[in-house]
């Protein structure tokens, strides 16, 4: 049986396809079928010849086999320093081997590669900073994921996730109408507390076009309201697009490059339609990576930049506080030990290490902010990156991976962790559930709203109450 009915090389392009795959609980049948999935070696080798160019080939060739990257990988550290977790070994024994054998590998080998690519690497790119030759294993794993996806060897949840982007242009089955309705409804809920608050959909030439993570629409609609409140109080001229509002990309985790392109083009389409001065994205790391950092390349933009200047939420918030658009009541600042999770996706991968720290300087009373060690671009992955959080098959490995962040947090002595990234936030929630170390965790929006010094004219009038 070369192709399964559920597990095969075809991407999912229809809502029915998604439903059918979802009905196979935990992908039981899907993974069963995978064992017999035939590898199209010709296609694999042809793809490698066309896409594996000098950068990756040179990395694989000049690797000194020196092992200096070993300790930089948190998964090596938490897995009892198993030699098989050394970044160079992980990539040489998978991608390196496929290339050595010119694509002539079998399903068992591909399943092994899948396990390594999605449960032994979160594509956090930390090892690339510690290799003397500048070999970035995380990038190579991203590439390997693309090859595996093309052949149908991809974890069940991510096959579905990529399908969601193809069908809904969102990581979940949230339609454009759902998005607009939910946003408007959530904002209405706050009309009494914040008179004059509105969300204008599809306003042209606004200063800010705001984009989100579909999870907010489906599971955390409060987050949408909080964004609206902060824009409202800051007096921003902002809008949301009715189409192209989703910034995330599970297709990036899946290695489905065609879906990545479709997704990001929907957001760029909105930018071109509405011509905002800037795009601001929500507190999500991989979403920013997908839409702002990698997206331009998928969309074929030669300057490597999105159509309009696009910034992460921490950049906007830091600026609003700096310019006094938002004022903090000093009495209400955080007065307990608090630490900050640096998201690899916009800190290591776009250098935004200062923005979140600037925000902390406004919202935390002096002396209470404690850095993790290491931090900034040297920080470790939260443990759930690159899709790891969402893959049931590798839950045990993911839980082990959380130990590094757990220990980093414990070492700070802080009981509150600020995590301006959905994935990190989830991972930290899960690590509390798993290891019960008695911490709380939060996005920035709810913290800031609680401590705002709101100007009189924006407060509800006494007689309205």
């Amino acid at each position, binding site marked *: 049986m070369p192709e399964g009915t559920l597990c095969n090389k075809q991407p999912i392009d229809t809502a029915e396809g998604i439903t059918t795959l979802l009905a196979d609980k935990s992908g039981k049948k899907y993974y069963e079928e995978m064992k017999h999935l035939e590898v199209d070696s010709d296609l694999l080798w042809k793809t490698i010849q066309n*896409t594996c*160019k*000098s*950068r990756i*080939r*040179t*990395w694989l*060739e*000049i*690797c*000194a*086999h*020196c*092992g*200096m990257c*070993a*300790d*930089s990988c948190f998964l*090596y550290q938490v897995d009892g*320093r198993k*030699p*098989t977790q*050394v970044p*160079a*070994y992980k990539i*040489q024994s998978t991608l390196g081997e496929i290339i050595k054998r010119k694509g002539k590998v079998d399903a068992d080998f591909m399943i092994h590669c899948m396990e390594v690519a999605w449960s032994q690497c979160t594509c956090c790119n930390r090892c*690339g*900073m*510690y*290799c*003397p*030759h*500048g*070999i*970035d294993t995380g990038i190579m794993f991203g590439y390997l994921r693309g090859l595996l996806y093309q052949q149908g060897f991809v974890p069940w949840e991510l096959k579905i996730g990529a399908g969601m982007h193809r069908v809904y242009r969102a990581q979940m089955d949230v339609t454009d109408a759902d998005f607009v309705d939910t946003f408007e409804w959530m904002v209405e809920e706050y009309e009494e507390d914040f008179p004059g608050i509105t969300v204008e959909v599809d306003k042209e030439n606004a200063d800010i076009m705001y984009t989100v993570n579909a999870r907010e629409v489906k599971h955390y609609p409060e987050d949408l309201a909080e964004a609206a409140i902060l824009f409202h109080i800051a007096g921003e001229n902002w809008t949301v697009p009715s189409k192209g509002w989703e910034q995330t990309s599970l297709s990036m985790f899946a290695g489905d490059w065609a879906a990545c392109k479709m997704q990001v083009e929907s957001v760029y389409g909105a930018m071109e339609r509405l011509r905002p001065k800037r795009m601001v994205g929500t507190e999500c790391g991989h979403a920013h990576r997908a839409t702002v*950092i*990698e997206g*331009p*390349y998928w969309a*074929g933009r*030669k*300057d*490597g*930049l999105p159509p309009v200047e696009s910034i992460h939420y921490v950049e906007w918030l830091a600026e609003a506080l700096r310019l006094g658009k938002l004022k903090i009541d000093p009495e209400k600042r955080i007065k307990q030990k608090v630490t900050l999770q640096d998201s690899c996706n916009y800190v*290591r*991968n*776009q*250098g*935004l*290490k*200062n923005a979140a720290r600037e925000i902390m300087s406004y919202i935390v009373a002096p002396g209470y902010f404690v850095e993790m060690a290491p931090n*900034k*671009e*040297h920080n470790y992955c939260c443990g759930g990156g690159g899709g790891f959080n969402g893959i049931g098959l590798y839950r045990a490995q993911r839980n082990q991976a959380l130990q590094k962040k757990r220990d980093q947090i414990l070492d700070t002595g802080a009981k509150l962790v600020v995590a301006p990234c959905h994935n990190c936030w989830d991972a930290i929630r899960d690590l509390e559930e798993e290891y019960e170390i008695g911490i709380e965790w939060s996005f920035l929006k709810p913290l800031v709203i609680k401590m705002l010094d709101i100007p009189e004219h924006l407060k509800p009038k006494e007689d309205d109450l």
Partner: protein
Amino acid sequence: MYAVLTGPVFYLSLAVCFIGMAVRFYLYFRGLSWQLDRVAYKAHPKAGFNGAVRSIYKWLIPFGTYGWRTQPIMTIAFFCFHIGAVAVPLFLAGHNVVLQQKLGFSFPTMGAAMADFLSWMAIAGLLFLVLRRLVLPEVRILTDKKDWGILLLTFLPFATGLAARYQAGDYGFWLTTHILTGELLLFAIPFTKLSHIFLFFASRAQLGMDFGIKRGGMKGTKMAW
């Protein structure tokens, strides 16, 4: 034998090494793809250049990066070996006599004491790298036969060069084997991981451009290597 080694084979080994590496260097940069690598090399040459330079020079400084600092012993061994491996072949008086005779040019030379010191230091560094490869599980798992071959190939010119230098036994024999092994090393460079001698700069430049253009450089943050 000696005549052949210092005659045609000498020229051939240098030609293979340098022409080979020029070709590889050219192919490397020609093979970079802004879209596949997802780095807009051409659109932002200045940011790319700055990133590339930083990425190279930081790593050439002993203890200049987090990577070197977290593994001090490795760092010391690496620099002990590499300073000798680069300086002795280029600046040894004996080598430059040969260069002057055969090619009509030469580099500045170092004194004999310096040459001895750097050579022994290189051998010590190399032996340490060997030891490390034997002992550390995270290095052992990466090691294959080729790695041992490369280490041997690197060790031989040093060992034989020193044997000739101290006239241990038959000087002529050691000198001939020295030249032979030195030339073998040159031949191997373009075809093995020894190509890193040149491609190190290419690879580091590429990652540097990545950070200089896409991963923070254009946001005004310099990568803290």
